[in-house]
């Protein structure tokens, strides 16, 4: 970049402390140059967000800035008065935060919230400001911005609210944009759309950006430079390519190799024509959560179930354990019909099928010690004599590499990653044949995610365990599963071996999902690709489903019949099924 030498914002010896005197940031020296996108990363609690806020001379809760300077245009922000700061914040330096839905005021229309920030910083007033808000909403890719401007934040999805926030931040044409984990909690396709918009806007307007994130994929794809924090200190300040190269060497993922090797005999789990709807309170309408799902899973096999939120993945998982009664369809486990099982036989089956939930803190009793929680399943199912319980518990903790000293602690004193491994250990105590893992890694930092996946792969080798890994994170599924089932709006749209799905996806949705996946390599940056297969907008409401193909409203490949004809899951080859009438056609189009 021509003007890359112009530093627009810099921190010198910046220190932040909490009220209890624990230093959160110590002696930070960083800078941000015009037009540059800098990634700010580090583990949870490393002080990333605190630093991002301190660059605006802001702190949260009991923290306060204890020393240093933040220089912006020859002025030290930390020495300015509140009124002077008001004029810089939002106009010259804008912030985007995570949890956009709580960052917007719940009682004002979002358009009004954009226009009043615009007005505050010298923009035009009244109808002109409202026009500006609508224009900004359109710029960040919101459909029907005139109507959306009148919405309240609780009427928006997380992705949409995040866009409103970026529209608000960019409405004043700031010189610097600080984004604090702007995509945490968003689906991958939405995340990619959002980051693309942000990247393009930044390049167009020359806005310098500081992007706080834990995702190596985002750092590799969108950042020029990466600053890494650890325990409140800068430990790295290098170019993105250098940073990503370093972290790949640290974590080597070996994908599962012996695919299809274990598909012999009868499947362990068989689901046929599963359907589940939820009635909508106060109306006759229903939410179609699962619509005709069939899948099978063999002994010792691991299957990944992927799709965006709202696609019905978790509902399938819960129906498999009979935690939810399905409306129609048949579930067979090891030859026994699960749909009709009740009482003692259901209890026996449940011992053999275990579930690990998304939030480990929700799945443990906060007042029990870990040991008490682990004793529970042993006592309920009489797995081993009570005298041997301790040994069984210790065994299972060893399997998931958790220290035995954790047993005496309570959930709040254990980190999320370790607690999730304990949740897996607890599931293993009943000696199950089959494990349902419902988004086990989505609450965890990348480090914790890798450990969980390693543990899962090890368990499969050691115990010949079968599992269904429900996840929206393609990396997890790619590294820990033999086969992948892709779901969209309650339907299975594609099933196949992991390597096939990732190397030659056939369904436009799968293609978009994989395209939205951010590879951890700056050589294959998403923003550099010209032939991206994107989807438009967001997942439709599962209440009023489209008539034809469910994807038709978002699919760039959709033709006339796609909008009117219901699609069926058809065989592409012996182990690859796809639900798209144009799958082979599209392939020909692309080849030519």
């Amino acid at each position, binding site marked *: 970049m021509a003007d890359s030498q112009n530093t627009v914002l810099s921190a010198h010896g910046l220190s932040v402390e909490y009220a209890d005197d624990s230093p959160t940031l110590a002696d930070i020296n960083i800078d941000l140059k015009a037009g540059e996108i800098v990634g700010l990363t580090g583990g949870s609690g490393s002080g990333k967000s605190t630093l991002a806020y301190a660059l605006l001379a802001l702190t949260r809760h009991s923290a306060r800035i204890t020393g240093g300077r933040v220089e912006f245009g020859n002025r030290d922000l930390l020495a300015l008065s509140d009124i002077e700061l008001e004029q810089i*914040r*939002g106009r010259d330096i804008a*912030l985007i935060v995570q949890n956009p839905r709580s960052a917007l*005021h*719940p*009682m004002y229309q979002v358009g009004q919230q954009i226009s009043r920030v615009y007005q*505050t910083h010298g923009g035009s007033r009244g109808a002109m400001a409202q026009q500006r808000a609508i224009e900004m909403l359109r710029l960040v890719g919101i459909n029907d911005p005139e109507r959306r401007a009148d919405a*309240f934040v609780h009427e928006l999805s997380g992705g949409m609210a995040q866009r409103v926030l970026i529209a608000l931040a960019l409405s004043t044409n700031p010189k610097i944009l600080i984004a604090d984990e702007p995509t945490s909690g968003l689906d991958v396709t939405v995340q990619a759309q959002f980051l693309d918009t942000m990247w393009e806007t930044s390049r167009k307007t020359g806005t310098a950006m500081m992007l706080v994130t834990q995702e190596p994929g985002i750092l590799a794809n969108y950042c020029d430079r990466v600053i890494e924090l650890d325990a409140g200190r800068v430990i790295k300040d290098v170019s993105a390519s250098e940073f990503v190269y370093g972290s790949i060497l640290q974590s080597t993922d070996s994908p599962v190799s012996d695919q299809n090797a274990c598909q012999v005999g009868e499947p362990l789990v068989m689901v046929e024509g599963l359907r589940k709807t939820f009635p909508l309170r106060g109306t006759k309408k229903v939410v179609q959560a699962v619509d005709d799902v069939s899948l099978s899973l063999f002994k010792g096999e691991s299957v990944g179930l992927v799709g965006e939120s709202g696609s019905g993945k978790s509902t399938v998982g819960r129906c498999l354990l009979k935690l939810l009664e399905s409306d129609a369809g048949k579930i067979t486990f090891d030859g026994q019909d699960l749909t009709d099982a009740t009482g003692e036989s259901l209890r026996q089956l449940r011992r053999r099928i275990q579930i690990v939930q998304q939030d480990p803190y929700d799945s443990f009793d906060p007042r029990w010690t870990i040991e008490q929680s682990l004793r529970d399943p042993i006592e309920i199912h009489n797995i081993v004599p009570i005298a041997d319980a301790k040994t069984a518990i210790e065994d299972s903790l060893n399997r998931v590499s958790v220290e035995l000293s954790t047993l005496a602690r309570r959930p709040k004193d254990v980190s999320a990653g370790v607690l999730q491994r304990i949740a897996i250990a607890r599931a293993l105590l009943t000696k199950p044949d089959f494990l349902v893992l419902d988004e086990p890694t989505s609450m965890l930092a990348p480090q914790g995610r890798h450990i969980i996946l390693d543990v899962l792969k090890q368990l499969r080798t050691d115990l010949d365990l079968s599992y269904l890994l429900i996840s929206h994170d393609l990396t997890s599924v790619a590294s820990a599963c033999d086969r992948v089932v892709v779901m969209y709006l309650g339907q299975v749209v594609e099933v196949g071996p992991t390597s096939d799905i990732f190397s030659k996806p056939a369904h436009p949705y799968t293609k978009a999902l994989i395209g939205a996946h951010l590879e951890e390599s700056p050589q294959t940056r998403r923003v550099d690709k010209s032939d991206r297969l994107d989807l438009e907008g967001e997942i439709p409401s599962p209440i009023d489903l489209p008539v034809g193909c469910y994807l038709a409203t978002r699919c760039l490949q959709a033709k006339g019949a796609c909008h009117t004809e219901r699609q069926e899951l058809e065989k592409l080859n012996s182990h690859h099924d796809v639900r798209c009438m144009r799958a082979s056609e599209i392939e020909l189009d692309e080849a030519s």
Partner: protein
Amino acid sequence: MIWRFTLRRLAVGFVQLSVLVIAVFFLIRLLPADPVARFIGMNASPEAYALAEQSLGLDLPVTSQFGIFLLGDGDEGDGLIGGDLGTSWVTGSSVNQEIRQFLPVTLELITLSFLVAVGLGVPIGVFGAVNPGGAADKGTLIYGLFAGSQPEFSWGIIFIFIFFVILGVAPGPLGRLSPLTDPPDFVTGAITIDALLAGRVDIFLEALWYLSLPILTLSFVLSGPIIKMVRENVAQTMNADFMFYGQAAGLPRNVLARDALRAAFAPALTLIGILFGFMIGGAVLIESIFSISGLGQYAIRSILAFDYPAIQGVVLTISALTLLIYLAIDVCQALLDPRVSV
């Protein structure tokens, strides 16, 4: 939208009131009490007793009595359907008229008390939240505990003792006006308003003067929970993400303060409404101490005299008012906060 909600709530309120009418009517007749004996005295002859019973209508079967209560008995009164609550057995005058006379007195007292309690409580609460841990914050906390430590009648007696007996700066507990002053013509029943309507500023000021101690007592007790509620809500709002974000977006302080108040006020509104509904019947002891003949006094008198029509009238009035106040709160909530679905 809001109209449909209001209508629906009114319909539900009507059903609630109907059930209440039935319950009150039959429950008081289940009491082991003899209103006839109370009416004519213990030593009356059996003939006189029978005559009195007949004149009160208590000789009829209970269901017929209920019919008359609802529909009237032809020659006098229209019954509840016609909006007539009947005739008091003690005074012989219409219950409607008596409530019309006593209700405004109570409403005047508690409305003025709430104006003072809210007028003082909201700013103090906000101030405490803005300066947490400061002297004012601690002071209000102690005050809240202190004011809530004794029932309001106890504070009333203490205040009379201090301000009237010892210091002599407040009027005695003699009602709403000096016994020597002629009250203004009855228009609304609220003496301050009637005085202003009559153009008598001197009576208006005198009424305020005589009401000052009861208002002080009530608002002293009421402002405790109001301060606490406002303080908690504002403190919570100030910590909310949207306030932090507003600051990061460079919104001026006065805009941020307005944002915080709007978010914090909705829950406080509910508390104020509930307290108000509660006070319509709950101010009775304060009325007693200060010789203010309000609805509470009327209720006590009716209950002690087994004056069934009056008891029914009071219960219905208080319930209907409380329902209307709750409805008003809900409508205000919905107007303030778009998330409240109506």
